[in-house]
């Protein structure tokens, strides 16, 4: 009375193969787990039996022991419901044991025996393909994401009865077309819709072209959110690998619903009240990817940057630096990829109207100082582009033109990125923003005039070492957009216009 089924448990974002053994022997009717089951697996104990009985299959009135191997690996997630149920069906000879060979099983069961949408199925499929299995048996709702892995046979079942039917050869799963129901998260927005704010639109283009992070400082109603949302639309299209990586994270987080692969870059805009675990990943029972990982290969927008918890902002340093987060809990430590473009927005002062043309800022100076101190330091150092986004007057709005279409801008961005890839092919860097200190100076060659301008900027604007590097990186991107091999004086000058978000209309320089 023994059955054996392959399952996959998802740790962080990666799937790990688990062998589920079921043994039905003498003893009082019970279900016992061994082999380091997590809390959510223990939950399955009371769920699996009703599911089996609800669909007309038989649950043995004997002692059932389910072992999860390897015992050294902690197993978590509701996806183990289905393999446990199938293991028992094999052990009780209700389905042929040969039929389960070559398949991995994953899915959460309801008491009625339905297979519910389950997080992390894409990771399951990837692990199964990597292990050389033939196919996966998963909830029908997750079939589209699993179908992204072309080498696998996808068995998407809606109920446990269908799974049993498949194993007995009496039910045949519908074919899945991986191309349908692609997952485009961002609602259809376009840069074209932005009227005015030409400099901010240009800054978005530069940010996209060089992979630079960006800070917009401006009063409420200036359009910061509207602008940030459109950055995702001018970044180069996701490559197949990038799309799969991003989709995997969304799948693990359970956000995929019944959709397939991400087709547009994610745009995540968490509220400033978000918890540390929500932003960076974690959670008390299972480790979930945070917003930084959901924004992987896309845009993370933090509005009201100064309102975020200090530790959350500090925590952004690792992903900004390494493109990943390591989350450590008692349950273990997992790593999530988190390579995103950060767009931050902040009011210029607590009341929001510092530097405004029509409304006078009445913030007390000491509060203003405190406010700005919140944003100083390590996080700001990793933001190359900073600009003021003023509230436009009616005349300015009427007098200004609409933006270019996103796809036109994206073409320029793609070309600029291509130049960078070519230039950096030997050093393993993909874009200007990722250049480290000494590399910046090597790869950002200036023309003679630009050298002169830089020298005068260092003196007049009191550029720090970091400010200097930032200006060079951004100038390199502006030159890439212009198709220039060396940085010319106008490229550098434009880069210098993106150097400070705060500091104007303020007292500090008035004296």
């Amino acid at each position, binding site marked *: 009375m023994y059955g054996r089924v392959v399952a996959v448990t998802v740790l962080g974002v990666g799937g790990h193969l688990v062998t589920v053994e079921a043994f039905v022997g003498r003893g009082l009717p019970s279900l016992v787990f061994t082999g380091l089951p997590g809390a959510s697996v223990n939950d399955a104990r009371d769920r699996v039996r009703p599911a089996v009985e609800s669909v007309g299959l038989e649950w043995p009135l004997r002692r059932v022991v389910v072992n999860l191997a390897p015992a050294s690996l902690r197993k978590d997630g509701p996806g183990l419901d289905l393999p446990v149920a199938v293991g028992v069906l094999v052990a009780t000879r209700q389905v042929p044991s040969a039929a389960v060979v070559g398949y991995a099983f994953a899915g959460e069961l309801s008491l009625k025996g339905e297979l519910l949408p389950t997080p992390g199925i894409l990771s399951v499929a990837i692990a199964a393909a990597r292990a050389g299995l033939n196919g996966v048996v998963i909830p029908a709702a997750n079939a589209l994401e699993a179908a992204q892995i072309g080498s696998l046979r996808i068995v998407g079942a809606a109920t446990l009865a269908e799974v049993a039917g498949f194993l007995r050869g009496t039910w045949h799963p519908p074919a899945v077309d991986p191309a349908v129901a692609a997952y485009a998260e961002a609602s259809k927005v376009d840069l074209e819709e932005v009227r*005015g704010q*030409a*400099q901010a639109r*240009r800054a978005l283009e530069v940010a996209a072209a060089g992979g630079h992070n960006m800070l917009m400082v*401006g009063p409420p109603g200036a359009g910061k959110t509207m602008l940030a949302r459109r950055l995702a639309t001018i970044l180069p299209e996701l490559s197949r690998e990038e799309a799969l990586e991003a989709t995997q994270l969304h799948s693990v987080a359970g956000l995929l619903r019944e959709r397939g692969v991400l087709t547009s870059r994610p745009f995540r805009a968490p509220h400033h009240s978000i918890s540390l675990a929500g932003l960076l990943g974690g959670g008390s029972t299972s480790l979930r990817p945070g917003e930084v990982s959901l924004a992987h290969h896309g845009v993370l927008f933090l509005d009201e940057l100064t309102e975020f918890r200090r530790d959350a902002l500090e925590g952004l340093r690792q992903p900004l630096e390494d493109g990943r987060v390591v989350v450590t809990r008692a349950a273990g430590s997992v790593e999530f990829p988190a390579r995103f473009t950060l767009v931050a927005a902040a009011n*210029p002062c607590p009341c929001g109207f*510092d*530097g*405004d*043309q*029509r*409304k*006078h*800022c*009445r*913030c007390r*100076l000491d509060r203003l100082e405190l406010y700005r101190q919140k944003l100083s330091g390590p996080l700001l150092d990793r933001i190359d582009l900073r*600009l*003021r*986004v*003023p509230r*436009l007057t009616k005349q*300015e709005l009427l*007098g*200004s*033109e609409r933006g270019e279409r996103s796809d036109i801008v994206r073409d320029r961005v793609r070309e600029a990125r291509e130049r960078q890839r070519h230039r950096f092919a030997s050093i393993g860097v993909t874009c200007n923003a990722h250049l480290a200190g000494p590399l910046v100076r090597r790869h950002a060659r200036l023309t003679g005039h630009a050298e002169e*301008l830089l020298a*005068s*900027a260092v003196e*007049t*604007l009191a550029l720090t070492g970091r400010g200097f590097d930032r200006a060079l990186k951004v100038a390199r991107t*502006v030159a890439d957009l*212009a198709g220039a091999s060396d940085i010319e*004086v*106008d*490229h550098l*000058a*434009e880069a*210098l*216009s993106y150097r400070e978000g705060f500091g*104007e*209309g303020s*007292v500090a*320089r*008035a*004296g």
Partner: protein
Amino acid sequence: MPEPVEEAFAPTGWPDGFAGTLEERRAAAVLASLRGISPRKLHRLCWREGSASRALAAVRAGREGSEADREHALATSGAAVIEATTAAGARFVTPHDQEYPGSVLELDDPPVALFVRGARIDVAEVRVAVVGARRCSSLGGEIARDLGRRLGSAGVCVVSGAAYGVDASSHRGALDAGGRTIAVLGSGIDVGYPRSSADLIARIAQAGSVVSEYAPGVPAEPHRFPARNRIVVALSSALVVVEGAAPSGSRISVDHALDLGREVFAVPGPVTSPLAEVPLALIRDGATMIRGADDLLEDLGITVPGHDRHPDPPIDLPEDEHRVWTSLAEPSLPDAVARAAVLTLPDAVAALIRLELRGLVRSTGGRYERTLSGGADVPGV
């Protein structure tokens, strides 16, 4: 408590012999260190009692002033106050002293004594108060600095309150020009407030004078600033208001100036600018409009070798910078500049930054505007 009728009037100045002896002087020092009694009440009390010693006795007896004043007056010796003043590098100046300026006596609530650091303040000179918003615009700061500079080089002493913004800029301008300037503090003479102005105050103490009616150690508190303004105005023969948003300290200074018969000047701004609200209202009420230092000096009857305003870029500019500069009639968005100068946005931005590096243009909250001075000839802006 309603004030007794006989106290409603007090003569200007101080009773004969007030603070004239050592004992009187020490009594005045204690009176000057009281915090609970207003200068006006103290002035009347001194007239009623006829001397500083008797006024102090009244406070110590609890007949006048708050309970805290009584305790303070009993616990404090005048000698200690004067000693602390000396230790802070300041002089204790009573109405009996030569240095106590006659113009301050015109106040109907003159300070019972002044604490002074730096040069004597009884020298014969023309003094002009320059006041305005603490949260001034960059342009306002620049105008104040220019006024300070021009007044300074014309030999006019600039009086202000050492606060942020217009105050600090006008002091700095006077110092730039090597001129004299007087800072009147709203805190004890040894308290550098605001902190960011501590260095400035130290420099003023070297090159000019720092004045306060508050004894050493008195912290800066909001209610002291309006009171400080009356001394700023009393020390000066004219008052210039640079920028101010509706309810502001500048308004209080203007009221003092009108009470004392000082002339009031105001620098206008755009009717849409909240910071132009006070100056424009003053002009409408009859203050003299000045466009800058030239107008002011002319109205004060002081002639100085004329400075031109700066309608043209002061140096030979490259073509695109020239076009951009010329198109900057008002604070403008970069795209508006690009349209007016017929340039692409990146080129216009680049030109703006090059102009900024030359000191001809600056950005304020995302818009660009011309600087006042034309840049190159102005140190330290």
